[in-house]
């Protein structure tokens, strides 16, 4: 069994390492913001992308309506903390804690003294 497993692992590695090296050139393409960029030789597609500005590339990636999905980094506009959302969380959690205090300290002690 060990021999089979070792052979399978080696076969997998050898079979796909060629693909890996071939794809290495394409990987990380289009990340002109300096993040995770590996020095690679441009492919035909890269040449096309290299002629675009980052905004054009972004627009190409966001060709559909709406937002969401991964890898869709838009230009960042700094915003302050969302106080209404944080206040809502604080209020809900405080309410639960108050229920807990009521249950444990007020209701039970009241019941014990009654």
């Amino acid at each position, binding site marked *: 069994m060990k021999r089979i497993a070792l052979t399978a692992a080696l076969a997998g590695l050898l079979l796909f390492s060629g693909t890996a090296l071939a794809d290495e050139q394409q990987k990380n393409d289009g990340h002109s913001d300096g993040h995770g960029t590996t020095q690679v030789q441009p492919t035909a597609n890269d040449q096309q992308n290299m002629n675009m500005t980052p905004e054009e590339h972004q627009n190409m990636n966001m060709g*559909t*309506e709406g937002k*969401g999905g*991964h890898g869709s980094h838009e230009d960042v506009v*700094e915003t302050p903390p969302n106080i209404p959302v944080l206040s809502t969380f604080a209020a809900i959690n405080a309410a*639960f804690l108050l229920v807990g205090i009521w249950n*444990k300290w007020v209701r039970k002690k009241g019941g014990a003294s009654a």
Partner: protein
Amino acid sequence: MTAPVKNTQKTLAAATANAKMNFMNVPWIRAVIKSRWYPGIIQWMVLAVFSFIVFELVAGTVNPSRNFGTSMTWVLWWPAIPVLFLVLGRFWCAVCPFGKISDIVRKLVGSEKPMPKFLKKYGIWLIDLFFIMITWSDHVWGIVESPRGSGNMLLLLATGVIATSVFYERRTFCKTLCFLGGVAGNYSRSGMLELRGTPEICKTCKSQSCYKGNEKVDGCPMFEFARTMDNSADCNLCGNCVKSCPNNSIRISPRKPTSELWGIKKPRIEHAFLAAVIMGIVFVQNITMLEIWQEILSAIGKVTGTTNYNVNFTVAFVISMMLPIGLLWLTAKLTASKEAAEKVRENFVRFGYAIIPLDLAGHLAHNLFHALTEGKAIWFNTINLFGYQLSGDLSLTSAGTVQILQYITVVLGFIGSAYSVYRIGGRASWRKLLPYYTLMILLAAANIYLFSLPMMHRV
């Protein structure tokens, strides 16, 4: 020396050799786990870091590449977590900040009511549902790439923890509602560590303090009874049972990865379903980060007749989820000797567990990309907290190296899954188990194909 004495010595020697290694026999490990500071001191440290991460996420920069919270959560923690599950089981849950919040809330204001029957019965289904919903929400609202979104998600989880801890005993949330706990449980079944009671000692025990606790130590927070525990899905390695056991019955032993999957005594459909769902989620995570994702969306858009991202993504999401579930069901049906629904269900449940090593490998391989090509973000953003302005190439290694590591990881996962099929199938002939081997090959090949395509970054 007489012959019977020699035989007894031989038997003892053989028994010792066969006995599993017990980390509790290592003095310093025993001292650490029995210490009153374990795991509390680690919990407090993790809680402190977690609080700062949440602060950074909700109040720091909205640029994910520069946000300390984003890099710590999605570039360090999320890729590291499957490795932790594989090596240390659910140890993370022992030091998880949400678990600590639960402990604090219960201690201060908890009503300690028993876990509701509904949660006991349908908890894992709820975990399945939450995991699917969180993944869907992540893609629709971009939670991972939005520091504010990530912060809100963590606060939402904290709210769930507080709400359940106010009313219910022990770690009800972790056991029945935490999506990460569900994943942790499944992955830990493949893990290399197990905590068990020693049957010969436990059968004479009258105290049951491992479950109930004693005056000094709480009972098992995960509702486990060491005497009957036969899996590692719900053991946090918190050490409570080690501390409370009056007979030193608890052992912590290494084991072969995936070995627990080979003989699950009571396989459950919700676990098998979760295993298939995780594979679907790995597909979704990979597909949406591919550069051909926009082309896939456009193709779906032609069918749905809309360019709305949420609609088209939901279609892709449902297909990705249904694919492994459908394939597993189809395989179960193919191998059922009769068309009896019971047999199909039984096969689905039993062999669903065999997907777990591939789940783990897919999850790990996907996140290897982020950890190794965005890893310097952790360093940069940590240093930048002290007023520096470090920036530049975030990669730790080349994309080609990452790809080779991804392929190796998937191949190892495939070996684990294929061997689990072999053992779950009672070492039956390869012809008999061929449909399951084919399923594992298909899932591994799909993963390898996805990893061979160019991928976008997270930060």
